[in-house]
């Protein structure tokens, strides 16, 4: 039975890994952090695999784990992040490659919760209610967080255009 569950989980992990990694990268903006986050998420998913496998949507369940691990790790690592933070790379970091648009650096500057909401709303295409359930917050908070995130992006883009002008 256990062997069977392990095999199920391994198959799931192999299939889910690329998507999970991409989501993790969108939230963290760093490959190393994304790998840590996606790996921790799968480790937790395995720990609760019986529950995950029974869920209506295992993917949604795992995305919830990922988001919560991301947000809690950001709180724990607040101090560390202040000491070491990512900045635009001269050339090699993919997120700063010219193939990416102008918006990505500003998305990375959003506060972790705002970034998580933006990723869930606009990358995962989740409804506000679904995001609220996933994060354990009210729909109103999702709305206001999204609004603030977009306002921040708008302001950042506006100030840059002002500089350019």
């Amino acid at each position, binding site marked *: 039975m256990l062997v069977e569950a392990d095999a199920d989980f391994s198959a799931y*992990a*192999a299939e889910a*890994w*690329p998507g999970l*990694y*991409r*989501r993790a*990268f*969108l939230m963290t903006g760093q*490959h*190393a*952090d*994304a*790998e840590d986050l996606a*790996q921790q998420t*799968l*480790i937790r998913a*395995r*720990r609760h695999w019986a529950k995950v496998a029974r869920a209506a949507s295992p993917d949604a369940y795992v995305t919830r784990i990922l988001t919560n691990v991301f947000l809690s790790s950001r709180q724990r690592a607040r*101090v*560390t*992040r*202040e*000491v*070491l*933070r*990512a*900045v635009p*790379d*001269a*050339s*090699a*970091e*993919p*997120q700063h*490659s010219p*193939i*990416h*648009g102008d*918006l*990505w650096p500003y*998305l990375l500057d959003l506060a972790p919760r705002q970034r998580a909401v*933006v*990723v869930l709303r*606009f*990358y995962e*295409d989740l409804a506000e209610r679904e995001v609220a359930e996933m994060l354990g917050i009210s729909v109103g908070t999702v709305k206001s967080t999204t609004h603030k995130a*977009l306002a921040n*992006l*708008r302001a950042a883009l506006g100030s840059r255009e002002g500089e350019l002008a």
Partner: protein
Amino acid sequence: MSLEQLVRAELRSVADQVVVPPLPPLEERRRIWPVVVAAAAAMALVIGGLTWALRDRGEHRPPVEPPKRVQIDRSAPVIPWLDGEKLYVGGEQIPGRWDELVSGGETWLARRHDLHAVWGRGKEQHDLGRVGSFYGTAGAGYVEPLGMSGPFLSPGGRYIAFGGDQGNEGDSSLRLLDTRTGRTTELPAEFGRYAVDAVTDTERLVASLWPDTEDPQAPEARESYVLDVGKSPARLKALGGELVSRSGAPGLMLRDGEGVVWVVDLVGSRVRRAVELGPSPVGTDASDSRPPASLSPDWKWLLDLRWAFEQEEPTTVPVTAVDTGSTTSVAAPRGWAFAPRLAPGFWEPAGTLVTWVVKAESREYRLARCAPAVGACVLVEEP
């Protein structure tokens, strides 16, 4: 296109271009401590029960042993250390007159009086050539001003970076010396765009700042950057603060935007651990700053250094356990006081601190070894 649509398109575009690494192992780290705690609790219950049962039966009471006195080693220190112009390594004096010393792990790097930089492991010596200035001092407490040229030793002694655009006597190439193999690698010319200020123990990583102002890609603000020398072109990662010391700590010592000093241990360009030393005791100028504390090489103890600059000759000094945050004090040997103005001392790998103590009446100076875990110091044999 609305901003929402732009965001959606951007996120998809970024996600599509992410290169996904292979699935890593998903082994959980085994949590041993709950088992240990449970076992300890069970043992405590058993012992408690037995004690209770035997409390009035003196004939069965086990003999009470006096508390064991923890012995602090009194032998001469074997770590590299400077006594005036005398350099000691492995407990023996290295011939010559020496001005500066820094060590990490088994490696030491020193400047001889003739301005030659010399490094070694144990008593072996390798001459790196003449250097105009040096990067740091021995001991746990001093922060050197930045922007000086000279060889840099990584905190654990694995690498020495030397040369570079402020390098030695017109030599503009930057080199990385692996102290385990003795092999030197000349780094690509692109690294000449940055003045190197420190090197980490992680393979092929150099920390740097003072960007070339003629380089449009270089950052404008003064910040410390990690350069991954394994990549070409150089990968940059900013340290959200400035490097304030190249030596005297088991990791890079940085000061963040709020003036708080940290010791940061990097693995690659990721933070493995970071310990807050506290706010800089004076000013914000790197040339006039000192770290508020010194971290032991095992990352277990913080020695508060403020006393070293605020008190004349204290008989106790505060230390804090990093794991618990609890502060205790370490007492000088009876009849002696700490002589902090001479030097805060040298940490030994075992987490003991070798420092100078002074006798008030006779002004005699001796070396003492202090064990924060015990809260005491003993005089050590002179080498």
